[in-house]
């Protein structure tokens, strides 16, 4: 599931209106083909999609997946892109929500060869396109967009640009644990023996008032991290937040 290497010459796509990746096209629904399905644990599924007429994303953006029943009923949810823009496929990390109508279907039913209606990439705020150092903090499934950023930084030849800190209850519940570990991310596992947590001293070691912080996770996690960041001297206005609500 590693992203395709495109070498250090890889640049962020030109998305000016009328250009090859004009993002006005991102709102269009497309039938994506499921190429790979992985189940990294009981509560997650990773989908790798071939998206026709794909509009290049910036790391941090998301896609919407829409399911359609025979009687026309639809259900749609947003999922962060975990792949780098240079990857041939779009990788979505889906946390399976208890009783989740969409995540349950994606986790149990979808197989390679299926088609899924998608639209994206969406969002122009929680985005990092490399070239400037940044701080990225994720909790649980909130690490997914940060992994997209990390993979892009690796493609650019500057993985050190991203100061990563991630937290989960156990290693098994930390998505992309091996990749994050290999990248030197600070990892806190709150329910593992000796696992620790992202506390004031951990956050104090990360902050830099000149950098933008990308913070992603549950409302509770992001709320706690915001407080620690601001207390450690990170300006509130430098913190960009993506909160995951209970959307199944």
């Amino acid at each position, binding site marked *: 599931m590693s992203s395709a290497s495109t070498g250090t010459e890889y640049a962020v796509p030109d998305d000016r209106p009328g250009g090859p990746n004009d993002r006005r096209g991102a709102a269009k629904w497309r039938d994506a083909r499921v190429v790979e399905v992985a189940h990294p644990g009981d509560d997650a599924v990773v989908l790798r999609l071939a998206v026709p007429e794909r509009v290049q994303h910036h790391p941090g953006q998301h896609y919407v997946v829409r399911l359609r029943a025979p009687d026309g*009923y639809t259900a749609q949810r947003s999922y962060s892109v975990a792949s780098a823009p240079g990857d041939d496929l779009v990788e979505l990390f889906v946390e399976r929500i208890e009783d989740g109508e969409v995540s349950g*279907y994606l986790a149990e039913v979808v197989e390679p060869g299926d088609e899924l209606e998608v639209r994206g990439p969406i969002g122009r705020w929680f985005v990092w396109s490399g070239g400037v150092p940044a701080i990225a903090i994720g909790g649980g499934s909130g690490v997914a967009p940060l992994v997209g950023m990390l993979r892009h930084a690796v493609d650019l030849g500057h993985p050190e640009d991203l100061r990563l800190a991630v937290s989960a209850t156990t290693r098994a519940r930390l998505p992309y644990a091996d990749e994050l570990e290999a990248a030197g991310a600070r990892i806190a596992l709150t329910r593992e023996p000796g696992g620790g947590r992202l506390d004031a001293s951990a956050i104090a070691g990360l902050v830099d008032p000149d950098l933008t912080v990308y913070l992603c996770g549950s409302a509770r996690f992001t709320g706690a991290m915001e407080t620690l960041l601001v207390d450690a001297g990170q300006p509130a206005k430098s913190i960009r937040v993506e909160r995951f609500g209970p959307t199944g």
Partner: protein
Amino acid sequence: MATTRGFFGRRRESERDPRLPPGQYDVGAGWPVLTAEATPRVDADRWSITVDGLVDTPTTWTLRELRLLPPSVYAGDIHCVTTWSKLDTNFTGISFDTLLDAVGVRPEATFVVETSTTGYTTNLPLDDVRGGKAWIVWEHEGKPLTREHGGPVRMLVPHLYFWKSAKWIERITLLDHDEPGFWEVNGYHERGDPWREQRFDGD
């Protein structure tokens, strides 16, 4: 569009609550928190709101002053662009019409921009915030509005997706032109009508 193989949906169309706009689901008793910025701590005793721009008398009110105005309750549904809806809930505050009447709307005013303490902005046609369609609220279901939901005071424009209801509101400016706000320049729809599924740019 083709159907999705093996998907039948948990909620059948016949059972679907008619209060739910297309593509939305009922979040029940929950109320998800979605914010793009760090949640600010706003002191209710020092908070104020200003209505300015194309008005006869730009005016600033403290919360104490707003509480002296005729109260107004919104009881109904709210809809978030991320597809949850919260049905049959209620908020207490004042009708935004009360403030518009106080400042005097100039005839050339056609749009408003809401601004939060954080710098968050969102834009709306003036007609979407007058005539009983918008509130300034400080209570939710009888309790003070919490920080994460925009307390002490937020805007409420319940007929549009909820990003149009700015949290931690502190200024509403009337304009004679449209000025896209935070999400509107970041890929979301200009107006955000949930019944037309105006979610993103181009919908």
